[in-house]
């Protein structure tokens, strides 16, 4: 709700300014089967994970965020 996200360009901003881009995954996979796992089977970690966020209502850049999915603590 009021989660705040550290944007390297804009500082700490409310998460509502961002679009969530999901967990950070490799940009491509060598073959069709491993690509399926890459796209459709996210780690969905209970704990810290690297995520991409798009600062839609700010600098309009993608940023990398470390978020703990159990506590929502962000850094």
């Amino acid at each position, binding site marked *: 709700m*009021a989660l705040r996200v550290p944007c390297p360009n804009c500082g700490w901003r*409310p998460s*509502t300014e961002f679009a969530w881009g999901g967990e950070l995954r490799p940009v491509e996979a060598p073959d*069709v089967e491993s690509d*399926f796992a890459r*796209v459709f089977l996210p780690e969905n970690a209970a704990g810290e994970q690297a995520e991409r966020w798009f600062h*839609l209502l700010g600098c309009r850049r*993608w940023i990398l965020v470390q978020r703990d999915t159990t506590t929502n603590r962000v850094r």
Partner: protein
Amino acid sequence: MGGRLRLGRRRVPLDDGDTIASAMYRAGIRTFSRSLKYHRRRGLYCGTGECPNCLVTVDGVPGVRSCVTPARDGMRVRREGGWPSVERDVLSVLDRLHALLPVGFYYKTFIRPRWMWAMADRIIRRSVGLGRLPVGPVVAGTSRHLHCDVLVVGGGESGRAAAVSAAARGERTVLCDEGEVPDPPEGVEVLARHAAIGTYEGPMVSLASGEGLVEVHPERVMIATGATELHPVFPGNDLPGVMLGRAAAGLVRRGVKPGVRAVVVVEHDEGFEHLEALRSAGVRIAAVVVPGSLGSAVPDGLRTLVGADVLRAEGRERVRFAVLRDAEGVTRGIGCDVFVLSTGRSPRDDLLRMSAQGEPVEAVGDAAAAASPKEMSTAGYVCLCEDVSVADLERAWDEGYRSSELLKRYTTATMGPCQGAMCGRHLAAFAAARGAAANAARRTTARPLARPTPLEILAAPVHEVIDKRTSLHDLHVAAGARVGWSGPWLRPFAYGDDPQEEYRAVRERVSVMDVGTLGKFLLTGPDAKDLVDDAFPTRVDDLAPGRARYLLALDEAGYVFDDGLLCSLGAEGWYVTSTSGGADRMEGWLRDRADRCGFRAHVVDLTAERGATLVAGPLARELLVGLTDDPIDREAFPHMGVREVTVAGVPCGAIRAGFVGEVAFELHHPRSRGPDLWRAIVEAGAPLGLAPHGLDALEVLRLEKGHPYVGQDTLPDDTPAKLGLEWAVHAGKRFAGSHALERLAGSSPERRLVGLEFDRGGAELRGVPLRVGARIVGRVTSAARSPILDRSIGLGWIRREPEGLFPEELRADRVGVRVVPTPFYDPAGDRLRG
């Protein structure tokens, strides 16, 4: 101040400092409402805005807490829950029918025959309730955000002290209270009449006020909401005249004598203050009941019963006797008209309990204190809001609902207006006393809302809605356009009363449309071509400068999320357009691919900076020839060509493409020059019969061409094959999502978007299920009556039949439907290329 309340036909005089409840009480009113289920009389009880007993409707607004709401002259007050009136309520017969209406009765009764429930539902709804909601559209309130270091909720003693010391440390401090905050402390921003309704992650605290919603984003929150007085449970504990000490003292403070003869139960220090208040008001104290530890604290001259137990309160319309068993075991009934209970404190900590673990939210003062322990009696009302008695809890327990959360769900205790403020701890204690494990005897989860909140507040937008307008907006309005929302944009839907006129202008003459809302992106840099090649399934390598191509945008799962045009500008780079609603997603997608794949490319968003105007129709070229010196004939500027063209002195990037299926020029120009260009086109087009068209006409025009709208006609997991758009994917090419499509290559989709022809009807068919016999096999996503074809056409998706084929003969409600190929109009595209 004087003045009067209007209570039905009665006029209730007001004194200075009166709340609605104190004025009513002074006028002799003892029954403030009827209880939810059994229609029992309920009187003033907590006096601090916690319990549901004194909720009234004021000037048409239900659920007003009369005990804490200041009275104003001319208020129209209505008591709720009784029929025909609260004083004479025929439904009070329900109070004798407990056996027929046990807890959870609506889960078990009226089930067969099925029509019974519909009837019972109506009756139940009419007989219960806290008043009538005003009917009509809700006008959304406003909202604002407030950032500070410390938010203190509650302006009592502890809250003030916390706020003052935070401010003294130089922290920006905000103090809010649902009531008034007299004598606001220095250096603290005070928000009086702002009720905290929820604590959220962040932390963030939402405040509801008459001025709207305030979302506070503090670094730390201090909950100083104090404590309520404990709600004792014994038979007759809900009779009018039985009240908590604070209610009695509150009446005295406002110059109202709570009764003539009082029995007072004092089990903590605060109770002696209330006792003193009653004496000072001239109330005769029939007896004071205290535990052994406090026996010596009772003032001399009062009849004191040390160590006596409260057995019950008796009376019909109001309390007449307090029945006690004294220390020697003798039962006595003591006559009284007010039975005052001051038996301990129950911290108001719901806002604290709503916050997630580890959040900087703490309670201070009474809100942080331990609750007074209290044994529960074997009878009486636990939950005043929902009329749940100890017997109801026992029955639920016996039926197997053996934890506080299950008891809550089955009996609805804690679910009423007080949200468990009175009964929450009792429910947990009840489960604990019957041997429930610790995790089954916890207090039930606290969730927003902590206070009754008007719908206007809930409807308040949390963010400022930015209405995007093109530079032509004022011209559209001046032309009488009906303007409405289309995604984030305000766009013209129609210019006159006759959308067919706009439609005919496109098909027969020439028309103009504002398409400045399209997403517009310029891609430059050494790797721009590689970025385009990677980001889209479209064939790029053979796209010559000055040419455009239909662009499908797929995500990494191979799902279509947008479409548009790709234009090669040669050395200047690549120009990409997207749908109006998809521009943000398209930009995010392009930047994501550019970043993660390491392309040296710039993504320049021109959506706001550039306007776009579509000139379309068989006479479009004839119109533009008069406005430009640049060659625009068929050979120099063919279909899907891209040229620099100066139109009416405005430099435009022109694309010969159109959604509508006629000769069309999409003119992309500096936003600021939009009005000049539009005026020149409209003027030059007048002799040709030009009429601008809006979204209503466009809907029919694009449907005739069978073009799906991504988002309206598509689903989030539609692949190109499901949409019949395989031709827009360049086979054998590597791009984001190519692996995913490769995986699906061998199988054919289970669902397809197809063209539909209806026996009759139009736009109203949109959303209607498609059936074969009684089975639903799909849904209509778009429908319109085509004037030029004189047919009803549409798009929709259908599922493959179990035998493996797609159905071809369907029904949409009573309308026959056939699956037909698209486009419906000009399938060969001769008019488009003309």
